[in-house]
């Protein structure tokens, strides 16, 4: 691992730790009721507070793309396309199963599936071009 790569992973760890801390603090207030009952106008910004540290992921991802060479960028873009198409297919399939009586799943599951597929597709590309 190069020093640049190590510092980037350290930065990601810091962003995720900040997101986790903000999520715990937000949930403590909203779910556990720490600090007493709150009006809806106060609940909305508290619920969305974890998005502030999470937004730092955007420059982190863009920065990672800029460090890649042209073949790596192409592989990443192909992996994103595969992940988007397959997760769309799975989401539509599960929507049809919900009509048949399967339990409803939260919207965030689609994003988790897409990221999982993205990671798998990138690893397959790395294995093919190792």
């Amino acid at each position, binding site marked *: 691992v190069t020093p640049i790569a190590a510092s980037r992973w350290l930065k990601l760890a810091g962003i995720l730790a900040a997101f986790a801390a903000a999520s715990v603090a937000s949930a403590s207030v909203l779910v556990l009721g720490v600090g007493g009952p709150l009006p809806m106008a106060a609940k909305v910004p508290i619920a969305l507070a974890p998005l502030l540290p999470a937004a730092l992921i955007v420059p982190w991802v863009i920065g990672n793309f800029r460090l890649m*060479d*042209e*073949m*790596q960028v192409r592989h990443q873009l192909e992996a994103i396309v595969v992940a988007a198409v397959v997760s769309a297919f799975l989401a539509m399939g599960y929507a049809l199963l919900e009509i048949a009586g399967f339990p409803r799943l939260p919207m965030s599951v689609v994003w988790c599936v897409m990221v999982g597929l993205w990671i798998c597709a990138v690893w397959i590309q*790395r294995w093919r*071009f*190792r």
Partner: protein
Amino acid sequence: VDPALAVSVKNRVRELRMARGWSQIDLAAQLKVSRQTVNAIENLRYDPSLPLALVIAKLLGHPVEAIFGEDL
């Protein structure tokens, strides 16, 4: 691209790199790309962009048309 005009690009990157005694890692470091990219170019699994091909040509000391082409 019209299939009638499609070309199969070959290259002499491996031959010229080895003539200089460079490893794939050495060439990749000079090009600021990954070793996997150099390997993919040498094995004809990836065609580099024109700017990268020009840098490769400059490093290997030959005109780009002597390194990349259809009839090598």
